[in-house]
């Protein structure tokens, strides 16, 4: 008897089926009534198929730092070929999880596999399957980027001839003879990206790859991630900013206080969380009074006033209606800003959903 959970190809609803090995089972989706069949795997290959379909498996990972539980019984799987976002506020346990996957830190309990290799019993093979870009990347200040790349090529066991083309690709070829110690933060990050690519590993782990970089670098890094994924690589990356992972991740896991609180596609998560951007409107002489007409508008969820600033939480498509209504009513609008929903908002929502975290 084999039990398997699959997802409806149309509406992604999870369906659990069970039967004998190799049995063909007819299914009807309970949600969208899509009809189809699924052939269960043979008994012997079941395990192999399962392990082979995941690039990273984390099972029951826990890590204590003295009295602090940094990661608490965390489990998630990254499927081969997907971009997986690990989201959480600062101190949620993202970096600890990533470090545990790479055996940079020793977990208190749990099992981790990269590309099917257990990191404890087969660490070398596990790490041969993964390229890592740490949050605070640093190299050797006295070496040039070319010397640094040659060193990492040797460490990977790949031919050094790829060092120069890779530096060209990330745009560091002009700085090839400068010491890394003279590099800006963005350039060091690019060197980090270059070193991560030399082994052409099937899995990439990037810890806050866009953290602290300006918009131009963020765009470059995003494009690089997309490009690597198109080449067939699996990517796990962490972030504490929701907008960074939107349109980039296939799935995201949200963790807080070392625990997984949600795992889904970004679109589903947004729907589930129902977080909307807020309009911040500076109005001359508002003086803390909320205009009644705005409250009555369809699609407006929340209106708050703080001195001369009016905060309106609403559906994006009625933003212009809000502005027009305000002008009609004779309010003098000085400035308009959109405040994107922050991950912290998402956490508050999620914690509410969980019925209180503590």
């Amino acid at each position, binding site marked *: 008897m084999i039990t398997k959970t699959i997802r409806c190809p149309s509406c992604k609803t999870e369906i659990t089926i069970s039967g004998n090995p190799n049995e063909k089972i007819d299914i009807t989706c309970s949600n969208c009534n899509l009809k189809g069949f699924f052939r269960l795997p043979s008994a012997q290959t079941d395990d192999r198929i399962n392990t082979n379909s995941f690039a990273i498996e984390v099972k029951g990972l826990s890590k204590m730092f003295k009295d602090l539980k940094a990661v608490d019984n965390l489990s998630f799987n990254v499927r081969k070929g997907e971009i997986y976002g690990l989201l959480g506020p600062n101190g949620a346990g993202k970096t600890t999880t990533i*470090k545990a996957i790479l055996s940079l830190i*020793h977990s208190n309990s749990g099992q981790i596999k990269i590309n099917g290799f257990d990191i404890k019993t087969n660490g*070398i*093979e596990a790490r041969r399957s993964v*390229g890592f870009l740490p949050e*605070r990347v640093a190299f050797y200040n*006295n070496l040039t980027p070319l010397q640094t790349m040659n060193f990492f090529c040797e*460490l990977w066991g790949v031919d050094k001839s790829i060092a120069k083309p890779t530096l060209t690709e990330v745009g560091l070829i002009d700085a090839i003879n400068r010491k890394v110690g003279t590099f800006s933060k963005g350039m060091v990050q690019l060197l980090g990206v270059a*070193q991560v690519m030399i*082994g052409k590993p099937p899995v990439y782990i990037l810890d806050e790859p866009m953290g602290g970089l300006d918009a131009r670098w963020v765009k470059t890094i995003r494009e690089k991630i997309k490009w690597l994924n198109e080449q067939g690589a699996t990517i796990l990356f962490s972030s504490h900013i929701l907008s960074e992972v939107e349109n980039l991740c296939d799935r995201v896991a949200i963790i807080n206080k070392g625990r997984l609180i949600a795992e889904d596609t970004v679109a589903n998560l947004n729907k589930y969380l129902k977080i909307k951007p807020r309009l911040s409107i500076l109005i001359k002489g508002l003086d803390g009074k909320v205009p009644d007409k705005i409250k009555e508008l369809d699609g407006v969820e929340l209106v708050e006033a703080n001195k001369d600033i009016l905060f309106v939480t609403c559906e994006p498509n009625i933003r212009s209606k809000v502005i027009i209504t305000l002008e009609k009513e004779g309010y003098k609008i000085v400035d308009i800003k959109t405040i994107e929903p922050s991950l912290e908002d998402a956490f508050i929502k999620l914690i509410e959903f969980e019925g209180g975290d503590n």
Partner: protein
Amino acid sequence: MSFINPKTIFTISKKELLDNIRNRWIILLTVIFIILIITFSYVAGGGREDLFGDMEASVTTMMAISSLLIPLIAIILGFSTISGEAESGALYVVLSYPVRRIEVLLGKLLGLGSVIIISILLGFGFGGIVIALTTGSSSWTGYIGFIFLSIFLGFIYLSLAMCISSYCKRRITSIGGGIVLFFWSLIYGTVMMAVLFASGQPINSILTGDLPEWFINSAVFSPSDMHQTAVYRAFGQSAVTFDAGGGGGITSIPIPEFLNLGNLLIAHFIWFIIPLVLAYFLFKRRDI
């Protein structure tokens, strides 16, 4: 199965050598070292022939410099090699590669050790040439023994410094550890002196050389003293002679039989291997 990959060790050591050859502190110290060694060997060998005049005497003088500067170079090379790179983040990248921590540790030891070997060979090579030119002296086997023992001293301090670096969480704390390590021989000497006087020895026994054997044998607990005794032994001497000043003439302290070259080399090896093994276990268990 876990095997050590020599290629990884070689790659790491080459990188350490390359990185530190361009480290200005190491360049500065090596230059100072070379200049002092040349000057001392000239002064001792040629300039004051009445007092010294041969290679052994030159070495005695050179040793005063080398037993201070070699530990200093080794400590500067090793004190932050793990704690500093863990703090900066360079170690995150290296350890995420398909490498074992023992390979990284041994690679660092060999790479940083070769920086020490280069400094010593440069310094003592030039020093030896100057001595040969000014005195035409002969005890080359003793001199080669001196060079070997100096390298050994460097590796002892390197191993100790790497042990401190593996233990300390941050670069700044390992600086403290490095300073204590550098002054250890001095601290230890002072403590032993206090023990000596407390045991009822007269204060002027230090000057007359009338010292109990246990006191001299305790040199094995101070790498620098142990090293100097071994150098005397390498030149076939069985007593340390020096002019204590104050018109007392030349004082001679016989080296006890326990401190023969064989035992001293064993003591050297223990000082080298124990911190290294400790460094390995600390580094292996460390959360980076």
